[in-house]
């Protein structure tokens, strides 16, 4: 509490725009990647910025105050989470507890869920119900990996994990916890809602799920939400497995590498049915993570 001052406030405002811009840049690049896989030219890399700006300039509808509150709470919660992600070895708040990150992310999800279901469209609620059901699938493997690392280092600080991997490729956790990395890659796909876990936004089936009633700036907030989510989740994986980074461009590059992998999988996969998706996550990601946890608990590594 004592270190709250004007400078920190400015830094945090800077970080909130950084997280949004990085995410939007990745979204544009991701569309480009998908386009090239489909042998198209694709939109320009800054397309997501154009989209968001246009969305904010449009007029929009709201159904009630809960919808406004929910959308603001959603993006606010996710940006607050982004503050706790160490960016290139720098934790702006001086703390990067992984438990805070995992729980603070939920307030973003809760806000989103609340905002869209206040619109009163059943499609939106079905999408949310699917997203939450899927959450039960991917959260457990992630937690198990984090617990394994916590066992090794006796700390639950993300920055500790990142600094422990310094000094070359060989120290990266991707080699130290290979099973864990596989598990978290599978979970990451579900976390982002990319194929084969894109039940939540199934445009042809439930009319893009949560986004069905979002118009204008609400949709813009929805895009920013995805952008910040990208920043947070890729940042999480880079810090957990890819050795963090000491310079900002290396950090961004590593983040993009994680997203690039995800987009490549997304471009070639079909969608699971929802309960198949959860079962698949438990069966593969869950087993891998559990194995990793066992191995770490027994002290093999």
């Amino acid at each position: 509490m004592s270190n709250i001052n004007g400078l920190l406030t400015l830094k945090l405002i800077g970080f909130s725009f950084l997280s949004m811009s990085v995410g939007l840049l990745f979204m544009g690049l991701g569309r480009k990647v998908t386009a090239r896989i489909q042998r198209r030219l694709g939109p320009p890399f800054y397309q997501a910025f154009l989209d968001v700006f246009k969305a904010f300039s449009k007029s929009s509808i709201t159904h009630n105050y809960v919808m406004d509150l929910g959308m603001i709470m959603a993006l606010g919660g996710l940006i607050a989470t982004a503050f706790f992600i160490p960016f290139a070895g720098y934790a702006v708040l001086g703390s990067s507890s992984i438990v805070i990150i995992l729980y603070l992310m939920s307030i973003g999800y809760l806000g989103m869920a609340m905002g869209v279901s206040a619109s009163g469209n059943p499609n939106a609620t079905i999408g949310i119900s699917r997203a939450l059901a899927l959450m039960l699938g991917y959260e457990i493997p992630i937690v198990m990996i984090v617990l394994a690392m916590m066992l090794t280092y006796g700390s639950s600080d993300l920055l500790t994990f990142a600094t422990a991997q310094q000094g070359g490729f060989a120290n990266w956790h991707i080699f130290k916890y290979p099973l864990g990395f596989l598990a978290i890659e599978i979970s990451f796909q579900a976390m982002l809602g990319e194929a084969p876990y894109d039940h939540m936004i199934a445009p042809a089936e439930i009319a893009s799920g949560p986004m069905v009633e979002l118009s204008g700036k609400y949709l813009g907030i929805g895009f920013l939400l995805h952008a910040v989510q990208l920043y947070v989740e890729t940042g999480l994986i880079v810090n957990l497995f890819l050795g963090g980074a000491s310079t900002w461009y290396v950090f961004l590059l590593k983040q993009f590498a994680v997203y690039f992998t995800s987009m490549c999988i997304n471009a070639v996969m079909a969608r699971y049915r929802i309960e198949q998706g959860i079962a698949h996550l438990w069966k593969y990601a869950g087993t891998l993570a559990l194995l990793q946890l066992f191995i770490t608990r027994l002290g093999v590594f």
Partner: protein
Amino acid sequence: MNKNVYMTNLRDERQNAWEGILNYFRKRSMWMLYYCTGCGAVELPPTMTTRFDMERFGMGPMATPRQADLLLITGYLSVKTLKRVIRSYEQMQDPKYLVGFGSCPINGGIYWDTYPVINHLEMFLPVDMSIAGCMPRPQAILDSFEKLRDEIQEGKAVGYKRYEKHYDWYKANQDKVLNREEAILQPWEDPFADKPTLEALQAEDKIEKGKDK
């Protein structure tokens, strides 16, 4: 009330510099909602996929009218589908553009003398762009979108403002078909029967001749 709104010139409002900047973003990011009432939609997949790649211009499909900027009427409209189109159009948010696809929305196409078919879409909703052809090829579609983009930048594609301004006239036309109760085995009456002269129109809207294309 102006009885022939569908003929009025589009450039009825001046844009300021800020609008010009916004229009740049609007034309670079157009999200479509296509209303696949007829056969025209079959030309959209090739326009979107590898060969022509519509996404180059920031255009992409969207799931619901709330999210979309561009409503494509891809084929003929019956009385039944007209009702849905109107509801969808009204649920879209400003600024919004309506594109008639193929000859059916223009004059009924090959169905022009059938009783449940609407021959002139512009009587019911403000059409920003019509693409002639039965059906238009992807090149024609892309070309017309290019034109639409130019019009958006110039501030000419303001059909939604026209709809708001002359809502009573549109509403009256819509009610005429949607609420009719007697059985009619002829096509709906020809709207061009009392077509006004250009001079009358210009006098009514106070538009200089030079700016009319």
